[in-house]
């Protein structure tokens, strides 16, 4: 437990060491926040409710999504750092230590998520709330459930990234597939447009994926339109994905290390 905390702190500090990069990233998010907010405002001139979201929900979506994207790690610097470390052999050295790699990576990622939540997501959301009219839940319960959902989203985000990065055990040239994965992740998590806006059955089906659990799920809860009308169900789905991905990650890591040992790296 102590080790987890130390690793989380390390993950936090690695990002805290580059405040310049954080401000720049925050600035980028704000710029895009503005642009997408204006686009959605224009969209809502044509309709009052889309996918269960009214205009204030949609603006809230924009300002939460921009920040949450970096917290959950949908893209950004270091996305495939693990893949690189697998190939340079750094991971092999790590494997020789009495360290649970997966758990260590998770702990560091949580630290990172914490840093970006505090220094990117929150300031950005506050700015958006000051400049635009967006949904602000009155009941504390919903905020709490939102926070829980975000925590679960971070876990799911880690699970997805961990699995995709491990492909570098087998693929010498992992960049192509990783780019594809990031693209799929972007769309299916709702980062490009709320999944609720997707036509027909897609709006429901996409929200069952682990990607949706990274971003759309917490936002749905915040806005008050969880899938199937049940916040508990959404949280349960997130938790299930988090556990499933962690287990899958473990299996794949074992298979990968076995391959490493047999082939000699």
């Amino acid at each position, binding site marked *: 437990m102590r080790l987890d905390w130390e690793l989380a702190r390390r993950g936090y500090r690695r990002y805290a060491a580059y405040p*310049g*990069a954080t401000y*720049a*990233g925050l*600035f*980028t998010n704000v*710029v*895009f926040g*503005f*642009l997408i907010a*204006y*686009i959605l*405002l*224009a*969209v809502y001139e*044509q*309709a009052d409710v*889309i*996918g269960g979201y009214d205009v204030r929900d949609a603006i809230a979506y924009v300002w939460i999504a921009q920040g949450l994207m970096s917290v959950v790690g949908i893209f950004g610097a270091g996305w495939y750092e693990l893949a690189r470390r697998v190939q340079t052999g750094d991971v092999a050295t790590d494997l020789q230590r009495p360290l649970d790699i997966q758990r260590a990576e998770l702990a560091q990622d949580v630290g990172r998520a914490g840093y970006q939540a505090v220094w990117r997501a929150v300031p950005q959301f506050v700015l958006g709330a000051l400049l635009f009219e967006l949904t602000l839940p009155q009941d504390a319960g919903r905020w709490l459930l939102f926070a829980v959902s975000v925590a679960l989203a971070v876990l799911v985000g880690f699970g997805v990234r961990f699995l995709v990065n491990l492909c570098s055990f087998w693929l010498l*040239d992992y*960049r*192509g*597939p*990783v*780019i*594809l994965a*990031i*693209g799929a992740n*972007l*769309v299916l998590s709702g980062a*490009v*447009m709320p999944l609720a*806006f*997707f*036509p027909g059955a897609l709006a429901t089906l996409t929200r069952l994926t682990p990607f949706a659990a990274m971003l759309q799920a917490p936002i749905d809860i915040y806005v008050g339109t969880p899938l199937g009308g049940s916040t508990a169900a959404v949280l349960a789905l997130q938790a299930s994905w988090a556990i499933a991905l962690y287990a899958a990650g473990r299996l794949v890591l074992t298979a990968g290390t076995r391959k490493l040992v047999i082939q000699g790296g």
Partner: protein
Amino acid sequence: MRALAAIYARLVGARIRSQLEYRLSVALQLVGVGLLTATDFVAIAVIFANVPALGDWSLGEVALLYALATISFALTDLVIGHLDLFPQMIREGTFDQILVRPLPSLLQVVASDFAVRRVGKALQGIAVLVFALATVEVDWTLGRVLAIPVAIAAGALIYGAVWVALATIAFWIVDAIELVNAFTYGGSFLSQYPIGIFARWLRGIVVFVVPLAFVAYFPALYVLDKEDTLGLPEALRFASPVVAVLASIAAAAVWRNAVRHYRSAGG
């Protein structure tokens, strides 16, 4: 001028050749980039699955905007996308190496890379262009037919000028490159949409200060023979090439000035 173009072709040719040695890898990345950037269009598609118009622009019309902006930006990205790494060049002293060679510094920086995988972005833009032209009704004249490649070329120059001018920040504050990205990628994203939907102050900037509106918006108005709800002078529809040339001249001046500052103050 011709000699410089020849040298550029040689330098870039060498880079392209060395990348093509890994054909499969490049192809995979190309596809990946194409699909990744197509997500921008997914946004537009999803919007129009729910509403019939954005401002007073239909799906096909917005698709045309998107296509012009995307193809232009893809071309710029191909040629100078590596400006992302320009701060690194300064930090590592590579720029000093450039100053010791008998070629203009900007040419050398531009010629220092050419990422073949970025073609994926252009291909995706072309696909959307085909879709757009099939969807909208255009009263095709010779002028309108030519307007599309001209707009793309002018758009690429405008993006390029903006990017180069912004990148010179690296001469003053080496770590400011992320800020530049916010503007270049943000600017590209913005020009995919009809500028009428943005707030007044933003519209003013992209028409009169950083002329992004001339990449796609004005050319599209011309091709579609659409009325401009913003009430701007009609002559602006034809102004893209002129704006592109002026922007390039301005950017070159900004670059020269920045290099002068570097040679006096730093190094």
